[in-house]
């Protein structure tokens, strides 16, 4: 990679500011905001399903302009702090940038990416609710799942050629995408995703977990374990696709956390049809878009 990491982060941060959100959420935000009494629950529901909108919203909220007593990690919190109207108008300003094109020069399918991110987020939250006994907020697992692969969508938009090559190599050689990214780009989506959220002052735990979601750590917290397992479960069950054909076995520390391997985790998730259907509905582009 030619640039230093701080130059790259700066360049990519600026690029993300201009990045449009996903077609379905843009469409829904525009519909909802036509009503003067925009239903708050639905508005929150749309924003929290869109990684780009969520990322942008939390970036502003955690910026130095507001010294909130704690870092904000959920869309609900943002509504309590800044009010529904402000959040609605912020979402509208994101929607006004248009929508992410379904076809980009990297050949990366953003709808399938979205489906993978949404199911990973929901699985991570469900795992946390079921297995965590240390008081970890399930919403932290959700947000980690939603944003864990954000680096890829940034690559697809702003380093399309190199990313296309990485996608092809990963598919042809059946190697993990992050390894192909390292070979071709010199960095990978975990590093870029982590750098962006770090620059935007997201909580350190979220930064670390995004950065480590393909790393076998010697010890890990609840969010790390839930995210790792949810990511692999989503891939194994075939919900969406984020460019990585390889399903990894769970590292020992994650297996220990769930007292079982990936299949046991999937069994532990129970019936995921509801989660999957909801994510599928959202990830599909409306005909009119």
């Amino acid at each position, binding site marked *: 990679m030619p640039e230093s990491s701080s130059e790259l982060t700066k360049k990519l941060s600026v690029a993300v500011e201009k990045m449009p959100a996903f077609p379905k959420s843009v469409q829904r935000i525009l519909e909802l905001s036509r009503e003067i009494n925009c239903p708050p629950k639905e508005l929150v529901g749309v924003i929290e399903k869109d990684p780009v909108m969520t990322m942008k919203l939390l970036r502003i909220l955690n910026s130095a302009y507001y*010294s909130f007593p704690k870092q904000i990690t959920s869309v609900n919190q943002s509504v309590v702090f800044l009010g529904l109207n402000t959040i609605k108008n912020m979402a509208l300003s994101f929607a006004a940038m248009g929508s992410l094109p379904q076809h980009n020069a990297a050949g990366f399918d953003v709808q399938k990416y979205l489906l993978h991110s949404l199911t990973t987020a929901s699985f991570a939250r469900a795992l946390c609710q079921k297995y965590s006994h240390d008081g970890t907020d399930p919403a932290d697992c959700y947000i980690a799942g939603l944003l864990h692969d954000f680096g890829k969508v940034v690559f697809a938009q702003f380093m399309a050629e190199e990313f296309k090559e990485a996608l092809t190599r990963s598919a042809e050689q059946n190697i993990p995408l992050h390894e192909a990214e390292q070979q071709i780009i010199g960095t990978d989506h975990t590093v870029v995703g982590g750098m962006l959220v770090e620059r935007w002052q997201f909580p350190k735990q979220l930064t670390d977990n995004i950065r480590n979601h393909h790393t076998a750590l010697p010890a890990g917290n609840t969010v790390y374990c839930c995210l790792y397992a949810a990511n692999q479960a989503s891939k194994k069950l075939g919900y969406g696709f984020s460019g990585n054909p390889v399903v990894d076995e769970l590292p020992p520390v994650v297996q220990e956390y769930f007292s079982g391997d990936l299949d046991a985790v999937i069994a532990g998730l129970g019936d995921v049809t509801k989660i999957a259907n909801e994510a599928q509905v959202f990830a599909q582009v409306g005909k009119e878009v």
Partner: protein
Amino acid sequence: MKLRFWGVRGSIPSPGEKTVRYGGNTTCIEVRTDDNELIILDGGTGIFPLAQTLLKELPLTAHIFNTHSHWDHIQGLPFFIPIFIPGNTIRLYAAFDPITGAGAERIMNVQLQYSFFPVREAEMKSRFEYVALMPNEAVTVGSAKITPVLLSHPVVNLGYRIDCNGKSIFFTGDHEPHFNIYEPGDEGYEEYQTLIEEQRQGIIEATRGVDVFIADSAYTIEEYPSKKGWGHGTFDSCMQLAKDAGAKILYCTHHEPTRSDDDLEKAFSAALERNADAVSCVDVRLAREGEEIIL
């Protein structure tokens, strides 16, 4: 400290015989520290009559704290005469708005444009400075400390607590108590409720024990359901908040523009009766244009 109400009306100026007792100007409060430093809370139309009284003490330094950028809190600023007179220093303090990406400077440059006002921003002859405030980060004006507190309104709104030599004032600007966007039983209801309670507690801590609490009580409880989400409180919500904060005096302000003086007094009396618990420990009053209080 000394404070004087120059505008107590919400939304739009409401002159006329039915509002003559409480006044028709929109929000503006003059505060003088013990060393006579001039702090002005909001620049609604009430700032214009205030400006007339200041012409005898030029050159001056005015510290204007804007709670939020809605018209009724900024509309008088282009008519604040000292901004056009060389030698004066005007410092406008406000929050950063995440939608426009701008702070206090936008309040003036939006209004002082050719189509809307005959004088351009560049033609203000005073020394005009903008200060961006962050919630909970206090600033000092002479002997006073001013702490911004983030409240709840459709645009970012900072309430201000002013502490000076052991006396204190808090002004909400516009504030609607946080409400749950979920119904009981919805997923997310409990979490949201916890967040709301944390917010309310935060406001109580920030305003704890103030001598004078000035609060947005635009609505009656009967009116509120159809105005929910518009960003204003009720007489009742203000009385309960002032009680919980341990305030000594509560001034209810931001009077509804359509409310006559008689109706205002009626609505106020009814709320006093309903909130006997608050009235027993807080001296609750209606803010009236021209009223002055010395602490």
